[in-house]
């Protein structure tokens, strides 16, 4: 079940769109935030609230890579390894995350603190390598700066 605040948020979202289906994408985001990842209950909650059939809501949710289809750590690291980032050492950063934090691509740390998702270009080629931690943007990464940045996320 959604919190009252989430219900209100989705209702506000709904009001901005002409049809309930159009509001699905942002509403699924809210559900993902509320439930941690897109559990069956998360889809049910969205579909009941918007009046969109469940199977359809799930179809939309599973289409997009940036929704979480499985349980994730408390903080999600989205690291780019596409061309610019790769040239400037993103592969090394992947290795670093593994050796320093035990964090594998697509995996979650044992303590549930971080999950790592490998991205294909997040639009920061000029300041590569780059990553997102939750909704925060970080660029010009080095092993040292990663260590510092992640230290802020408990």
């Amino acid at each position, binding site marked *: 079940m959604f919190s009252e605040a989430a219900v209100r948020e989705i209702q506000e979202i709904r009001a901005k769109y002409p049809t309930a289906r159009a509001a699905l994408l942002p509403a699924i985001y809210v559900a993902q935030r509320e439930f941690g990842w897109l559990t069956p209950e998360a889809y049910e909650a969205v579909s009941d609230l918007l*009046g969109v*059939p469940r*199977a*359809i809501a*799930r*179809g939309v949710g*599973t*289409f*997009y*890579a940036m929704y979480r289809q499985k349980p994730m750590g408390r903080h999600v690291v989205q690291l780019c390894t596409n061309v610019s980032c790769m040239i400037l050492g993103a592969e090394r950063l992947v290795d670093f995350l593994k050796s320093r934090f035990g964090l594998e691509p697509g995996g979650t740390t044992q303590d549930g603190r971080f999950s790592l998702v490998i991205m294909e270009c997040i639009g920061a080629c000029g300041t590569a390598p780059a990553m997102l931690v939750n909704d925060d943007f970080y660029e010009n990464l080095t092993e040292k700066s990663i260590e510092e940045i992640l230290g802020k996320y408990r």
Partner: protein
Amino acid sequence: MITVTINGKEIKLEKPVTVLEAARSAGIKIPTLCYHEQLEKYGGCRLCLVEVEKMPRLQTACTLMAADGMVVRTETEAIADVRRGVLEFLLINHPLDCPYCDKAGECELQDLVEKYGPTTGRFKEKKRKAPESLEDPVLVRNMERCVVCTRCVRMCEGVQGAAAIGVINRGGHSHVEPFSGGRFECEYCGNCVSACPVGAIMSRLHRHSYRPWQLVSETETICPYCGVGCTLVAQVRDDVIKRVVPRIGTPVNNGLLCSRGRFGYEFVGSKERLTTPLIKKNGVLEQSTWEEAIGFVARRLGELKTRYGGDAIAGIASPRCTNEDNYVFQKFMRVALGTNNIDSTARTGYAGAQAFIENIFGQGATANLIPGLANADAVLIAGGDPTAVNPILGLQIRSCARKGGNILTIGHVKGVRHYNPAELKPNVHTEAALLEGVVTALKEKKGLPGSIQTLESKIKEIHRPLDDAARTCGVTEKDLAAFVEALSTASTPALVIGKEVIQSAGGSYNLLLLSAVAYLVNARIHLLSERANEQGVVDMGCAPDLLPGCRPLSYVEFRRRYEAAWKSPIPEKQGMTIFDMIDAAKAGSLRALYVMGENPVFNLPNAKGVEAALRGLELLVVQDIFMTETARMADVVFPALSWAEREGTFTNMERRLQLLRKAVNREGMEDWRIVVEVAGNMGVRMHFSSAEDIFAEITRVSPLHRDLSYEELEKSGIYPYKGEPLRGVTGDIAVAKPAAGDGGGLFLGIERPLFHSGTLSRRAPGLVKIYETAVARISPATAAARSLKEGDMVRVSSVIGYLELPVAVDFAVRDALVMITNNFEGRGALSLMELVLDPVLRAPVADKTAVTIEKAGR
């Protein structure tokens, strides 16, 4: 007029259509995969690409509208190349397991690849893997074969209105799944099966048991389950029905079926079918011969008639049997036994309600086209869920809503909950007060039309201001006012009446109020019908007060006419209703009962009471296809042929006459033939040698069926009937107002599930696996108040007895009700029901049986 040229052929079009439709109309084939004539256009598969002069790229013929002067080519080298490419892509992930796939032989992909496809593919990568899903009882999902044409999804959402499945994931990983990812948990109509061009969603019932080309015959016949009367095609191999499919273009169901029609046919081949006549000797039913059993029944009936008179004998006809069976049976009762003691379970609601409505509006008032519902601009539903009772009719209501029509419901109607219904939920037993409010308001808004005086004088007596109605029923005045407004502004409204308002305290008064609503807003009336030939059994004169064609027995001229036709006197005295029969059996004045294709012990209220009454009979004869609760008590049991093994006609709820055709062979006799044999042994000759013979007599005798013939029915059934409807017999309208409500407590309700229909469906394994066992369905509030949760065993008790059932908590159930189905042996809702009759309709009142519910002790 639009003129297009396709492959050099000039085609003239009356109305705008797509290039694909234009080509098809001229017999030019364009390959398609995602196109389906019943579905919204999609343009996803790119197989229908064609060249259009002056257009830059190839165009999809299925979405491109034909424009005047267009020049189109459908088969060029360039097009073939593209089609080859599309198919090569589709085959990247396709398992090519045709030798093992049930679809092979009727697979659209197979046909396309055979015609246009590449012989080898260039992709070396591994194909995607997905295990075949066998989690469902009636459906198999094999997603390796899916070509993501979305036909099933569009069918499920846009036509069936269930939206139970969707395409999930992206790109090469996309495929179709129900929400759960495993079991469909849907309406199980199987219409997605019809839609799927490949072997990705298929019926499980015939899995790996035949190849499409091995089918020996296809028989078009009528569904045996409900009053909608869908046309279905039974496909047969080795004299076994392997599969049932619909056909596009049939008048009632046009390519669609519901779960019962599609997956409910297996009872025909059930091992439990009765095979030989049985006679009770020393208290045990023993196998006998036809000769002995027929001789015995004829002799006993003769003796009893001589000793006690014909009125000591009664017959129960069947809304599952054909018109021909029922006609012969009532004639037998009237002519051979000399009694009008003939009735059927149509008495439990349908017959009385129809008579009531026809008495006001004239015969045929409820004979309205089902597909017409889709074009109504408002549909008022009272007394049940049409999508469960008469599913294909329910689809028309959903379609109406999709087209923008208003759906108005009295009570919560689960099957239309996604269609934004205006819902009024009156407290239990206050429906009449609510309707009084509606009628009062409509009367003020619309005025009286002045055409039916008897009804208007009743309407004038009705007075309940909206605020009072709202208060009494526990709805808000605002909702009630909006409801009335929607009704009064509708220009083509329809009214759908279900059994729950008929079988309720004050049923006749409810019907009067609903008739008043229909009259004031000029709505067409549809009366839901649970049995395939419920209309027919009444029209054939299987009623104590009606002769064939629904002609009242009490009119001397009518009786004389039938006497002349039958060359036999017809008793003047009105016979007993089915309930009178039970009473008379209990009282000892009824000595013999002849039951054709019915199971009164199970299908009438108060099983124990009925059983006790029947025990007192000197002779009980039962004709059936299975050993039923009633047959077990009989002195003689005749095995009858089933619906699939004979010819005849059914009359559906629209009063459309349709032909049943024999799909499979079986030794034995049709119900009518058994009756004819018994009559013959009693010295009453009925000269019928086929169902068609009987029909010929019906058309001579019944004014309602005048001048019809099988030959004419052969084409597509006859709607409504060509004969003369009976009008103007209207006297006063008798109604019985309900007594004041008796406050709180729980009452028994009869659940009418989509997947069942009494004693036939419980012998159809497919349906039983979908809905396996009886449950006590209660609302979350009822459950919470008694600390009950899903699955708890409870004892539901009434003054009649008790049942022990698992609890199902269901949001759709009203707080004051405990809903139980009447389908499962030994656990039928009716067995708990007190028998109280509405004095006017003479139908049982179903919602006044108080029950208690408590955890079952162990």
